[in-house]
C-alpha cells in the first residue's frame, strides 16, 4: 500500500510505550470523506427545503437566506464540488487498478467489491444478533461498509445524472423524450430522500452510534485506530497482516490532540446537523 507510507505512518518504537496505533485511512481517503460529508450535508440542507417547500421550516429558511433561488444556487454549488470529488475518486481507482496494476482494488480482501465472504458475513452477523452463532471475523471492509460505499456510488450516478438533466433541461431535451424529463424530477427527489434517510439514520447508527463505537468512530477523521480496536473490529485483517509480516508497515503515530479535538467538533457538528435534517424530513414527509 504505497499510499500508507505517504500518509504519515510514524515512528514505530514510540508506539510501544502507550499502546500501538495502526493506519486505516490515508490522507487522501480522509479528505475525500470530508468533502463527501460536507457537500452531502450541503445538498441535504438545501435539497430538503426545495423538496418540502410548502413546509413552515422550509419557508422560514428560504426567507432567511434570500429565497428559494439562493437555496438552489448553493445546492448546485455543492453538487459541482461533489461531482468533482466523485470524478477524482473514479479516476484514482482506475489509475491504481488498471495503470499501476495495484492488487486488491477490484477484487480480493482489500477491495470494495462484494464477494461471497460478504454474503456469509451478513448471514453470520444476523445469526449472531439473535444468538445463533459466533460473530463473523470482519476484514478490511465489512459488508455494511461496502453497501454504504456502493449506495453512495449508485446514488452519485442516479441523483447526479437526474440533477444535471433538470439543470440543463434544454440540452437533455435534445436527445431525451419529454416524459424522461418529468421522470428525472421524481427520481432525483425520491433517491435523494432515500440517501438522506439512509445516511442520517442507518449509517450514523451503524458507524458511529452503536455501543462499541459510541459516540463516534474517529478513525475516518484521524486515519488511525488503536491496536485493540483494530483487533476487535477487523480481526481477519489484523490476523492476515500479522501472518504476512505486514503489520509493522501499518504502524502509525497516536493522533495529536488538536486533530482529535478538531475531528470531534467537525464530526459532532455533522451528526447533529444530520439528525436535525432527519427530524425535519420525517416531520415534513408524514405531513404531506
Amino acid at each position, binding site marked *: 500500500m504505497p499510499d500508507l507510507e505517504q500518509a504519515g505512518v510514524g515512528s514505530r518504537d514510540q508506539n510501544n510505550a502507550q499502546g500501538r496505533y495502526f493506519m486505516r485511512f490515508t490522507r487522501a481517503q480522509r479528505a475525500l470523506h470530508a468533502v463527501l460529508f460536507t457537500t452531502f450535508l450541503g445538498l441535504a440542507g438545501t435539497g430538503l427545503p426545495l423538496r418540502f417547500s410548502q413546509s413552515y421550516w422550509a419557508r422560514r429558511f428560504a426567507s432567511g437566506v434570500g429565497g428559494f433561488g439562493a437555496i438552489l444556487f448553493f445546492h448546485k454549488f455543492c453538487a459541482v464540488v461533489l461531482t468533482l470529488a466523485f470524478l477524482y475518486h473514479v479516476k484514482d481507482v482506475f489509475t491504481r487498478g488498471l495503470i499501476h496494476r495495484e492488487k486488491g482494488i477490484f477484487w480480493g480482501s482489500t477491495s470494495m467489491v462484494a464477494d461471497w465472504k460478504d454474503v456469509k458475513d451478513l448471514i453470520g*452477523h*444476523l445469526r*449472531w*444478533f*439473535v*444468538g445463533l452463532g459466533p460473530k463473523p471475523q470482519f476484514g478490511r471492509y465489512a459488508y*455494511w461498509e461496502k453497501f454504504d460505499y456502493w449506495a453512495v456510488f449508485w446514488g452519485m450516478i442516479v441523483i447526479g445524472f437526474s440533477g444535471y438533466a433538470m439543470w440543463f433541461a434544454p440540452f437533455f431535451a435534445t436527445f431525451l423524450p419529454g416524459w424522461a424529463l418529468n421522470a428525472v424530477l*421524481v*427520481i432525483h427527489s*425520491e*433517491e435523494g*430522500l*432515500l440517501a438522506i*434517510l*439512509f445516511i442520517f*439514520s*442507518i449509517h450514523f*447508527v*451503524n458507524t458511529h452510534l*452503536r*455501543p*462499541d463505537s459510541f459516540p463516534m468512530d474517529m478513525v475516518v477523521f484521524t486515519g488511525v485506530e488503536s491496536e485493540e480496536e483494530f483487533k476487535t473490529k477487523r480481526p481477519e485483517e489484523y490476523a492476515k497482516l500479522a501472518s504476512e509480516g505486514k503489520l509493522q508497515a501499518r504502524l502509525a503515530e497516536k493522533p495529536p490532540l488538536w486533530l482529535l479535538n478538531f475531528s470531534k467538533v467537525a464530526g459532532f457538528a455533522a451528526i447533529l446537523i444530520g439528525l436535525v435534517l432527519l427530524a425535519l424530513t420525517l416531520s415534513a414527509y408524514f405531513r404531506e
Partner: protein
Amino acid sequence: MNLLLISVLTFFLIHTVLWLIRSRYDQIRKRAAEGGKHA
C-alpha cells in the same frame, strides 16, 4: 421507487435495531464479567 425506499430502509432498520440490542447485551455482559473479576 417507493418499494425500493421502503424495502432498503426496513431491512437496514431491522438490522440496525438487532445490532444495537446485541451490542448492548454484550457490553453489559462484559462489564458484569469484569466486575465479577474485580470483586
